[in-house]
């Protein structure tokens, strides 16, 4: 990847401060916060699909919202086509929004029940058209002002017998987008997501879950974005309808070269749609790589556990799983070190010292992994992984000592 990526985040952090209780306030203790996204660095190239997988509470949705500037980020940078978007504001921000769109998780809550489909899908078009018109009007005002100054100067110039300065041409202002034109624009979008033209004047409640998801998708595509963030686009759908939507996504990408960030806990959907996969756990990336590499040869123990927990639709292959014990721990001011350490069967003292940085995995190009002993664990035979106990970590402490632990984190 030599060309600059479409979107790049550097050490993105999003914390939600918790209200301080009176005793904390009086006691002078610092405010606590929820570390929803904690130092995420990732890239999305133009026209590719990055699948972001993780359990609920891992910060997937927060990350997606932060990328679309629906959350203000606490620290770190988000660069879109080389521009730092965390500093955008006003009309610059609103114009940028036509390049990044989001399909929200809840297809019921994210569609206004009182608007018809053409109004819902047409809203981004209308907003962007108004923005362009407003910018054009502002430009024309600037030109008019400049021309006024030129005319004044020209009065002096005629007296002095100097040649006249030409007036600047007035820029074109796009006409207001009329209802008929907006409807026509929406009509041309509906077939691309597989909605019938009759649905133009229907309300969201008249659609099934799959239909609503198509409306959401049409709305996101209406302004020709470069990147669409899909937040659990199929989690509310049945497999039959899910397959329709996933096929449509892949076709759209092929036709238009849109990049997708597919946020989901549905590994099967990621396998089918994504080019690369990032695994998020408690706000930190644990593994990033090509979809086949990550799903077929995972390195990080968490990825292995997550994939092993997937039920396989084949009754002949029921098996004992490599089970994760315990639930996801709290995100309120978590201790330093690998977030996965409390659940990891292979935990080492070094894991609890500092956050393991995402680093290229040994022997696999383009495959990034966080974790002290990741490769070593990845190389273990599956029987060892199937053991539920923490046996392997205590039984084999000889190897990691030789590796000298992780490089100190800056």
């Amino acid at each position, binding site marked *: 990847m030599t060309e600059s990526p479409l979107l790049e985040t550097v050490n993105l952090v999003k914390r939600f401060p918790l209200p301080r209780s009176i005793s904390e306030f009086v006691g002078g203790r610092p405010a606590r916060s929820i570390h929803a996204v904690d130092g995420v660095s990732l890239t999305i190239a133009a026209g590719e699909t990055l699948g972001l997988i993780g*359990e*609920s509470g891992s910060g997937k949705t927060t990350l997606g919202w932060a990328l679309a500037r629906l959350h203000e980020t606490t620290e770190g940078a988000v660069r879109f086509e080389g521009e730092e978007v965390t500093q955008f504001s006003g009309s610059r921000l609103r114009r940028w929004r036509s390049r990044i769109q989001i399909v929200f998780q809840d297809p019921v809550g994210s569609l206004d029940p009182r608007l018809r489909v053409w109004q819902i899908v047409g809203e981004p078009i209308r907003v962007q058209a108004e923005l362009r018109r407003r910018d054009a009007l502002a430009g024309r005002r600037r030109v008019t002002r400049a021309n006024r100054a030129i005319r004044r100067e020209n009065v002096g110039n005629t007296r002095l017998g100097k040649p006249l300065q030409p007036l600047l041409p007035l820029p074109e202002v796009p006409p207001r987008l009329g209802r008929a034109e907006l409807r026509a624009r929406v009509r041309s979008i509906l077939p691309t997501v597989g909605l019938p033209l009759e649905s133009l004047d229907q309300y969201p409640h008249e659609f*099934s*879950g*799959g*239909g609503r998801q198509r409306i959401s998708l049409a709305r996101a595509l209406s302004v020709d974005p470069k990147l669409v963030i899909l937040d659990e686009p199929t989690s509310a759908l*049945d*497999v*039959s*309808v*899910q*397959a*329709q939507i*996933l*096929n449509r996504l*892949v*076709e759209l990408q092929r036709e238009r070269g849109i990049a997708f960030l597919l946020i989901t*806990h549905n*590994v*099967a*959907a990621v*396998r*089918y*749609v994504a080019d690369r996969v990032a695994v998020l756990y408690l706000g930190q990336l644990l593994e990033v790589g090509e*979809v*086949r590499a990550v799903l077929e040869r995972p390195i990080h123990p968490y990825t292995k*556990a*997550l994939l*092993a*927990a*997937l*039920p*396989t*639709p*084949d*009754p*002949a*292959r*029921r098996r004992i*799983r490599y*089970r*994760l*014990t315990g*639930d*996801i721990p709290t995100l309120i001011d978590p201790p330093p070190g690998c977030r996965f350490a409390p659940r990891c069967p292979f935990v080492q003292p070094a894991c609890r010292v500092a956050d393991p940085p995402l680093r290229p995995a040994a022997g696999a190009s383009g495959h990034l992994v966080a974790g002290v002993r990741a490769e070593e664990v990845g190389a273990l035979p599956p029987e060892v992984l199937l053991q539920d106990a923490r046996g392997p970590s205590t039984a084999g402490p000889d190897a990691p000592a030789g590796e000298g632990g992780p490089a100190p984190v800056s």
Partner: protein
Amino acid sequence: MTEPVLSVEHLSVDYQIATGLVRAVDDVSLTIPTGRVVGIVGETGCGKSTLAQAIPRLLPEPPARIASGRIVFRGTDLVGVPARRLPMVRGTGIGMIFQEPLNSLNPAIRVYDQLAEAVLIRRWREAGILPSFRGGPEPFDYSHRPLPRPSEVLSKPVVPSGPVAEGPRRRLPGRSEVRKEVLEFLRLVRIQDPETILDRYPHELSGGMRQRIMIAMALSERPSLLIADEPTSALDVTIQAQVLTLMKELIDEAHASILFISHDFGVIAEIADDLGVMYAGRLVELGPVAEVFRSPRHPYTRGLLRAIPERYKSDGPLAAIPGSVPNLARLPTGCRYHPRCPLAREVCRVDPPPDLAPVGRTAEGQPHRSACHFPEEVAGLP
């Protein structure tokens, strides 16, 4: 084979809506043998949940109404049981696990009290203080003594005095005994340090925890049939794996019979022994789970199985089923699946398919049934 725990015979359930009646479950028959797990799959709106709730008669009547059929549970037809007797069947007879544990646990009651209530009711039924369900032609045991005052129940053990009906009567459990039993059930669902969560409210627990509490609650009444309606759909895969493993272990330990509703074929493949597939209110295929997965005999089942994304995009598009589940108020003529079916021909548009008929048998002699005009041609589909 022993008598099945439950046998549903030609059950139809209607909903009264503004424009008339809608048949959500249409002529469904299935049996659940003792110790077996029967899975039901189908898309949203196929009547899976209506079936699950109709069996313990949990549907609000009206708008729902059991139009016809029998629900024979341990020899008693539940359709004929008057509404005020139904609570006796539920709990100790049929236990339920719902999809969203946060909505089905009482948010204002601590974990301990919710579980203790279930334990107490069972113990009272066993002790003959509450009427209980025993199945058969005379299903209800009314030879109970009235409920003692709460102080009496909680402070000292009550020894039944006066005339006692036949059968062994147990003394009432004391407070510590109930607590011990609650802890036992929490440990049974693999909750570590159950003491620490007894005083918590449901919202303070994670989703997996809540679902385990639901399961503990259902099990603590020792039901002979457990109905699980999408019990793992709201959970993350790692937690889902824990809950499924737990349920599998419990099936082996408690020899429970389970009706397991899900839309996830992966989950069904893990847990079920038999599999029923529902479409638009009807059962279209029923058979041993391995058999249905290996050689489906209904195009709908095959379509669902083929739609599961198990490939990369470089491998070509997924086989989606075109269209969507029909509105039950406007069902197509003939076979309900014909507008989406690749095998559909004239007869499918006109004639409804035959009732669920055996189309094959496994090596063990278990029938594999399908309701399709052309069950033999399903295997030949591309």
